[in-house]
């Protein structure tokens, strides 16, 4: 059963593989399956989780310390970038759900970000709701709209789907523009400061979120929680259904997985998360206009997913951090070492884009599994025993 769903191109994932390696003649399918369902596979994974949790806790303390960074590294800007990367990670993961797990190439992501922006404007700016109430509601609305978009998408495959969803993107941007001009004007939609509802205990009640540190914790909770939820979905039979439909949806139908339902489920989940991401982004940047939802932003999410690695949760997160932090450090690099060249300093943003694009092409050309693939290759080489699935 495990081999049917195996795909050579994806990095190892949770779903669908019973161990992957022969553990010896004594392992029965039941034992393997039970082991696969375990939350944490072995001490190596526990160590990884421990390190990750330690990093998460350490980050805000690290960045609030009055360190003078060596060589003028953009220390303070990195913290802001980390927050942006967290929001992007949610968007990247939702994109990965569609692209990496179910192979539905949808460019409609920007449309859902815009939808999130409209919801946040209507309920938050005009209605005065707290962001904590808006987020789950936006997820529900996003899921419903996602289903609406997903149903006609069933008729289209591959590149047709890509271009059709591109059309959805342009429609949504137009819609946002109409909404913006109707209710707010040319300056874009302004969002209030995010605040928690009053009934929360202690200092959390009615607290406002505007410093980097506050946003960081809020985002860790929201984004982390949503991604963990998504990761769990991927662990379950739905996740395996996603992969089945991705690899061979006709065969999947024969084995009892309804591809239509699975695709729509994927669309609903992905759109829900993307809409939430739109709300988060709206509050974080406090001002969104129709021009903010560029096609490039959507393409950047795609880059995050592919560079990070398909069908891999940590890949999406890694990809999001990569795409957000690399331009920052590239900028520092060109400024630091080439400050005396006039050509370079005049065109710094274009040069950053140039290096960034070149980096993407190089990564894709030489390691198409992305950064997660590089990570896996490294791990495979350093561990002697058979690889435990680690997701």
């Amino acid at each position, binding site marked *: 059963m495990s081999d049917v769903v195996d795909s050579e191109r994806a990095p190892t994932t949770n779903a669908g593989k019973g161990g992957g390696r022969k553990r010896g003649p004594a392992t029965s399918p039941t034992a393997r399956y039970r082991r696969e369902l375990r939350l944490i596979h072995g001490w190596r994974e526990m160590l990884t989780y421990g390190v990750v949790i330690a990093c998460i806790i350490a980050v805000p303390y690290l960045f609030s310390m009055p360190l003078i960074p060596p060589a003028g590294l953009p220390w303070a800007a990195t913290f802001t970038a980390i927050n942006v990367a967290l929001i992007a990670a949610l968007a990247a993961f939702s994109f990965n759900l569609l692209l990496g797990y179910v192979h539905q190439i949808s460019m409609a992501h920007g449309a859902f970000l815009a939808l999130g922006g409209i919801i946040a404007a209507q309920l938050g700016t005009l209605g005065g709701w707290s962001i904590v109430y808006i987020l789950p509601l936006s997820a529900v609305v996003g899921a419903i709209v996602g289903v609406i978009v997903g149903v006609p998408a069933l008729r289209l495959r591959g590149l047709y789907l890509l*271009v*059709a969803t591109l*059309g959805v993107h342009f429609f949504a941007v137009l819609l946002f523009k109409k909404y913006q001009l109707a209710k707010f004007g040319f300056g874009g939609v302004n969002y209030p400061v995010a605040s928690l509802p009053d009934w929360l205990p202690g200092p959390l009640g009615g607290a406002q979120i505007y410093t980097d540190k506050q946003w960081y914790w809020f985002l860790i909770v929201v984004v982390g929680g949503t991604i963990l939820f998504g990761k769990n979905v991927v662990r379950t039979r739905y996740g395996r259904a996603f992969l089945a439909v991705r690899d061979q949806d006709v065969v999947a139908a024969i084995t009892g997985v309804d591809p239509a339902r699975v695709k729509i489920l994927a669309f609903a989940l992905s759109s829900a998360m993307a809409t939430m991401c739109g709300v988060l982004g709206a509050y974080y940047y406090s001002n969104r206009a129709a021009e903010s939802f560029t096609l490039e932003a959507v393409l950047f999410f795609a880059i995050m997913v592919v560079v990070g690695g398909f069908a891999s949760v940590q890949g999406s997160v890694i990809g999001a951090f990569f795409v957000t932090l690399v331009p920052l450090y590239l900028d520092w690099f060109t400024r630091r070492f080439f400050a005396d060249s006039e050509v370079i300093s005049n065109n710094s943003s274009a*040069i950053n884009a*140039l290096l960034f694009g070149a980096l993407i092409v190089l990564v*894709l050309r030489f390691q198409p599994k992305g950064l997660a693939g590089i990570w896996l290759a490294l791990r495979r080489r350093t561990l002697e025993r058979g690889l435990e699935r680690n997701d």
Partner: protein
Amino acid sequence: MTQFIQLLVAGLALGSLYAVVAFGFVTVFKATSVLNFAHGTMFMLGAYLTASMIAERDIPLVVTVLVVVLISAAIGAVIHLGIMRGMVGQALFTVVLATIGIEIVLKALIQIFFGAEERGRVDMLPRSSSQVGGVVIAHADLVLIGCSVLMVIGLVVLFQRTTLGFKMRAVADNLEAAKVVGINPQVVFMASWILAAVLAGIGGLLFSSYGSVVSLDLAGIGLRVFPAALIGGLASFPGAIVGGVIVGVAEQFAGGYLGGEWRDVAPYAVMFVVLLVRPQGIFGKKEAQRV
């Protein structure tokens, strides 16, 4: 009624330009199955080169055309040799994203070499117009249509009468069989990329005198070839031409009757309608999936 005909003619002119660019796009797709996201940027490059050479340096038209063709061809060749050749067999979206990376690089290069400001339209086409029964027909539109028709005829000759065209058709039809017969697919792939780049560049050259500005937005306009190709059927040459014309006409009608902001959306709206009725495009073939 007069507005209808005027918009129609303008639409045909713009559409014929799109048709030529879409043709190049479909060429690459048919040969290599790659959705080239960088097509819009190659289009933009042609426009920028033209603007910089004709408008700013008064270089004669013939030389400009030659330079645009050569530079576009070089870029197409580099894309194939440097990048695409090494990515044979990768997942489809990975290759598409590589073209997106190329698009980012090209856009940045254009920004570095030409600067980010907009330029005005290049004055290459005649400004006169004639009146036919109350309808004003701009000569520029007629020239555009004429140029595009000439190019399409040239392309048809290339594909039907030359050996290279024959090889390209063979590879597009059935790669394995073509290899068996002794056709080198790498040559065909390179020729496809070069042709696509050149067509996009020439499209940009023509567009620089048609549109109102030459700016970085042109990449987005170049993206209109996507719905054009899809309307016609992604792997169909006549489809590309028909699709291009339809998109041009739709865009002009939307702009004329609904307002400028609907121009971006109009091609996609038409595409939705077409795809709902015929998901494979007008001339496309229904693909059977092998299990």
